[in-house]
């Protein structure tokens, strides 16, 4: 770490996404930070760029059977099954806690039909403390044989359009990486009115217990996250940045400032830290500090200079 002298001007860290001003580009990834309160004993929520909640649904959701998680080489699989308290409990019991902080709250949400998405959006649109919505489209569309919304550009356009009608809040659409061409789904979301995109959600993966010959997850298949996936995530963010004109939030395997920087340099305006929170509850604090140190060492006065500065 670099020793800061009194006189050194600290680099500007603020970024803006879809009209929300963030004091810095570091925020947690949905589902890895609970509803904020779980990690409040370990870090100052007022130091973060934003807080992103666990994905919410209209009704409470129980989630999958166990085992739900499994460690892999430099990664983990999860099949939590989107367990959450539901929007009502969230508004009543979780929002008041989050409103104590001077940090934008981004609510992640999902549905299993376009109507569910739309209704939930309507509910969240009414809550003043919610700074922005992050729409998780990596969910099965029960009306279409359970095919995940996010892999089909038409379905993406349709469901994002429906949601767009229901809210004037900034709308972030969170893309799935499990597609042949992410530029197509990214553009579909943009055309349907997304204000920003976030990616990547987890990659689909599987692990087997060779002794019992059973999948390690009760759900057989789960989502892979953690450092292992970072090169794939950086590539996808790079591709999406080139395809759209809205800001992009980079996610995937970030555990150090150097990791976050890769995403910023390829063009992400902010980043989310997921699995690394489990490994180290202070991960985001450390990343922020290292990020400032990097800027100081490299003579960068404003983090925005770095964003999209990739030279090919």
């Amino acid at each position, binding site marked *: 770490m670099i020793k800061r002298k009194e006189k050194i001007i600290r680099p500007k860290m603020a970024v803006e996404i879809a009209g929300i001003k963030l004091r810095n580009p570091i925020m947690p990834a949905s*589902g*890895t*930070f*609970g509803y904020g309160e*779980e*990690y409040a*004993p*370990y870090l100052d929520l007022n130091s973060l760029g934003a807080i992103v909640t*666990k994905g919410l649904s209209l009704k409470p959701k*129980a*989630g999958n*059977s*166990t*085992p*739900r*998680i*499994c*460690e*892999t*080489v*430099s*990664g*983990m699989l*999860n099949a*939590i099954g989107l*367990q959450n308290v539901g929007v009502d409990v969230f508004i009543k019991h979780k929002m008041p806690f989050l409103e104590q902080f001077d940090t934008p709250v981004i609510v992640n949400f999902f549905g299993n039909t376009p109507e569910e998405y739309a209704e939930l959006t309507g509910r969240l649109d009414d809550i003043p403390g919610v700074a922005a919505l992050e729409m998780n489209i990596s969910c099965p569309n029960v009306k279409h044989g359970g095919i995940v919304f996010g892999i089909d550009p038409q379905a993406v356009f349709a469901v994002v359009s429906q949601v767009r009608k229901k809210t004037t809040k900034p709308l972030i659409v969170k893309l799935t990486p499990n597609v042949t061409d992410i530029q197509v789904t990214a553009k579909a979301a943009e055309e349907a009115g997304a204000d920003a995109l976030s990616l990547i959600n987890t990659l689909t993966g599987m*692990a087997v*217990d060779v*002794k*019992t010959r059973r999948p*390690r997850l*009760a759900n057989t298949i789960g989502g892979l996250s*953690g*450092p292992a996936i970072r090169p794939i995530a950086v590539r996808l963010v790079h591709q999406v940045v080139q395809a759209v004109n809205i800001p992009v939030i980079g996610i995937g395997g970030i555990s150090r400032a150097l990791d976050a920087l890769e995403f910023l340099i390829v063009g992400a305006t902010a980043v989310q830290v997921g*699995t690394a*929170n*489990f*490994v*180290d*509850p*202070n991960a985001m604090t450390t990343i922020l500090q290292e990020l400032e140190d990097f800027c100081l060492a490299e003579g960068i006065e404003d983090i925005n200079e770095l964003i999209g500065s990739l030279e090919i």
Partner: protein
Amino acid sequence: MKNHKTIVLSNQEISPGYYRMRILAPDYNKHAQPGQFVMFRVQRALPPLLRRPFGIFRAGFMPADCDSMPPKEFIEIIYKVVGSGTEIMQRLHYGDPVELLGPLGRGFEYGASDEEKILVGGGIGLVPLYMLAEKLVEKSKVRLLMGGRTRDDIITVTEFERLGVETYVSTEDGSLGEAGLVTQVLESKLRENNKVTVFACGPMPMIEAVQKICKRSATPLQVSLEALMACGVGACLGCVVKGSGHTDAQPSYLCTCKVGPVFQSDQLDWGASENRGADSCGGCR
């Protein structure tokens, strides 16, 4: 609840495959409750990715390295080498950098003091019972029923005896103590018809057998469970068990790391075979 970037103080094999590690751990004497656990990062870099959960065996103080410094505060954990993380752990020495998140979870409730306390430990399941015994002996008669497959699985019984706990050892192969299951011993003790609370920790089949026995005699039971954990703080929802009254329509999932790891037996759904999850899923890599 804090994350300490700290060091290992000592690490010793106490029985084949079982190690006892002492870790520098400020504030634990004051804050750690019997039955609580830590999320332990076995080194400050990968691998493994995730922390490992371990029960706190005991907390204590030891002399400082220099007499003008305050005494060193430590905790001890006892672990069995079973996979990638514990394999790295067994090679750690004094001074090696590790991280300790804790104390975490809800520990044991002590119950009334005019009753007898029976602790049932299976193998490594003994660990969280020691701090509990330290507390309970202050007010109640405490007995420990300790079971294992062979004599190698019988650990730290002498330490319980030093506290004044009456101990009964049984092994499946008869290599130490009585031959048989610890649950057989429990049944015979409960037949004495004293007012009793049972505290159990061990492999899931043992815990299930203990639950059946206690239920039959309407004996209050607290159990400490294991579950696969990523965060240890209630954020990932990976560690859930089914709560009593769980149905598909009205599901009830309780976080082992937050609501537990110690549960009153009536908090749990004993029909759910999945509550065996953690135990049967060890060995992920």
